[in-house]
């Protein structure tokens, strides 16, 4: 197992191995995470999302360059899709970030989505915890990029940039409901193409109609989403984008907004862990039960339909769980 002390000192070898164990869901991963968690939480986490081919990786490459100019220690987690057929993946995002390959203060990690559908992998949040504990001040997470339903990033990032390009149909195809609501900064990349102004205009119009009572009403959000134009390939507009992310960071730090946000994300993290763990336990429990085996036989022989069967088993579960809980309580009383 990688050494916690080495991870906290920023060892890339130890940190990378820790992320690997977590990604593989190794039994040691939980104890490792528990030890690292108290040391995480100081990083500012930026999410970058948008459809495939809009230039997310190239834009991140340019952003790394800006962050390094001001000597920030920066990490990137780039998520690419896992093939649902073979379980394999080609992780090619870092291909566009290779010029930072020899910079020791830059850590780039590719992750495969491994069956998750919300644009991140199950272990992305945990990987961010490791990187934060390693001392990275900025963590950029690049989502898979399938487009319109990648909201998982909103449960992990403090600031979200949504990348689009000019000429995507009626202009708003790439940033419909939901995805429009989670963005803090909107980026029209490849803005040397025709219709860039139209895309900016349409985005601004959509944003003016955005429901401000959405996700962050508890933060009394006076942050007005920005719309910026960039040409990531040659760096045009990237300095402004960098400044805007920093401005958002400063804004978040005022009046305890960032702390509130972090508390909110912490609750979401707890809930998602709870769901994973509970589901795992229940599945194991049910599959070992007699009722489950009997029901399978009944479905096989056609004496029960799958709908009633599922209902019966889960109803049964409720009673069994309660009984177990009571028994546990009694044990504790003794």
């Amino acid at each position, binding site marked *: 197992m990688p050494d916690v002390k080495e991870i906290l000192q920023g060892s890339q070898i130890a940190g*990378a191995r820790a992320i*690997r164990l977590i990604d593989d869901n190794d039994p040691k991963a939980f104890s490792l995470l528990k030890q690292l968690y108290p040391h995480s939480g100081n990083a500012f986490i930026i999410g970058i999302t948008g459809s495939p081919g809009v230039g997310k990786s190239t834009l991140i490459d340019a952003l790394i360059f800006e962050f390094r100019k001001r000597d920030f220690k920066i990490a990137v987690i780039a998520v690419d899709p896992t*093939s649902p057929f073979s379980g394999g993946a080609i992780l090619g995002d*870092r291909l566009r970030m290779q010029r930072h390959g020899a910079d020791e203060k830059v850590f780039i990690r590719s992750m495969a989505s491994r069956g998750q559908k919300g644009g991140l992998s199950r272990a992305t949040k945990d990987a961010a915890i490791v990187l934060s504990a390693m001392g990275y001040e900025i963590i950029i997470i690049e989502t898979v990029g399938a487009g319109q339903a990648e909201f998982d990033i909103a449960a992990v990032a403090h600031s979200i940039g949504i990348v689009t390009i000019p000429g995507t149909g009626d202009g708003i195809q790439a940033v419909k409901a939901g995805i429009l609501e989670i963005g803090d900064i909107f980026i029209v990349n490849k803005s040397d193409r025709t219709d860039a102004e139209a895309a900016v205009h349409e985005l601004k119009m959509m944003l003016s109609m955005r429901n401000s009572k959405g996700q962050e009403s508890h933060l009394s959000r006076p942050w007005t989403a920005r719309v910026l134009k960039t040409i990531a390939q040659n760096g045009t507009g990237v300095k402004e984008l960098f400044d805007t992310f920093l401005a958002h960071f400063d804004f978040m730090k005022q009046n305890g907004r960032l702390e509130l946000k972090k508390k909110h994300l912490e609750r979401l993290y707890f809930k998602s862990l709870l769901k994973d763990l509970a589901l*795992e336990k229940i599945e194991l429990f049910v599959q070992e039960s007699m009722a489950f085996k009997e029901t399978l036989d009944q479905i096989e022989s056609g004496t029960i339909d799958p709908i009633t069967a599922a209902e019966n088993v889960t109803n049964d579960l409720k009673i069994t769980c309660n009984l177990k809980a009571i028994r546990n309580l009694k044990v504790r009383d003794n």
Partner: protein
Amino acid sequence: METKHKIRVLIAKPGLDGHDKGAKIVALALRDAGMEVIYSGLHQTLDQIIQTAIQEAVDIIGLSIMSGAHLPICEKLMAMMKEKGLKDICLTVGGVIPHQDIPKLKQMGVSAVFPGGTSFESITLGMNKLFE
């Protein structure tokens, strides 16, 4: 949630040769065999390859070399891996590799050599075998 140890492979092209169709096709074949393949592109320095292998916590580095410089490149990379303490990572090489050089590469510590003409099946089998 069960433990899933997927094999992670870094496919890299060191040095100056500017031809990566083979490397890309091998990457696809490995993906289809269920591996996670990090493709890092052309013209990689050995420092970049080591750095990527560390950050990505890969099990295998697969070099694609067609320039004829496989012997000095592998020797240097093996030395760098040793220096960094990356003893868990297997180095494999493919590309234009004359048969008489294979024993020399093995002697340096290269785990497997897949010269041009090796079938995808042999490559994926060979890589899987490294972890049996």
